């Protein structure tokens, strides 16, 4: 079961918070959420993963899809605060450079 919260900050950055397990079922929802954000003009996105307890390859696929469309629209997608179970998946797939984890949601776009 997952709940995905979305809000746009005053600085125009979209913050997406998936709470729960990011598996096949949830990946579809995340894909839509990210597509809607980029489609409505928000191309800088932080995914706050502090409450994402599980990630699999379909969840990864949704994140990468979002990353690509954000970049095409001139922005970027950044990951913040992954838990160890999620970090393991980034490492096993060598995506820890492409989706480098930030320690903080607030400052994820500062560099």
């Amino acid at each position: 079961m997952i709940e995905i919260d979305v809000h746009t900050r005053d600085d125009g950055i979209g913050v997406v918070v998936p709470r729960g397990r990011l598996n096949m079922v949830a990946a579809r929802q995340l894909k839509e959420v990210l597509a809607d954000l980029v489609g409505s003009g928000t191309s800088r996105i932080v995914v706050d993963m502090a409450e994402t307890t599980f990630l699999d390859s379909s969840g990864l696929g949704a994140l990468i899809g979002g990353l690509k469309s954000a970049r095409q629209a001139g922005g970027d997608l950044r990951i913040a605060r992954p838990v160890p179970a999620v970090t393991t998946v980034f490492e096993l797939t060598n995506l820890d450079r492409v989706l480098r984890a930030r320690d903080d949601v607030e400052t994820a776009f500062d560099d």
Partner: protein
Amino acid sequence: MTDGRLVLSAPAVPEVLEVVHTMLAQLWARADTWDQRDRTRFELAVIEVLGNVVEHAYAHDTESGRRFDITLVADDEHVVASLADNGLPVALDLSGVALPEDELAESGRGLALATAALDDLRYERVEGRNHWTLECRRGSAG
């Protein structure tokens, strides 16, 4: 020797993955000396392989539809998942599984992840059913 096996038989639909996540949580509740990293890599592999069954293993339009069985067992040193489904035979060379060349590919990482996470992954076709066996040994790198 008490029998702590957890066995589920269910339709092969994405929503049932939630039941398997809960079964894994209960397995660890009993095998409570296993550390987080071992738990993570086993859960990941189980969900990847079962996700593939749900996504790719279409049955020959059997009367009863696509279904799968999963058995989870843990002892002090091993944890094993056995999956069986009535889908089409799988033509895969598991030894040739690799991450996609394109770093930004949106799919194609499932089996590579499962292989990296497990100590052993086996596939067999027996009596018209696909059988997958997944094993992690405690504390190994995967």
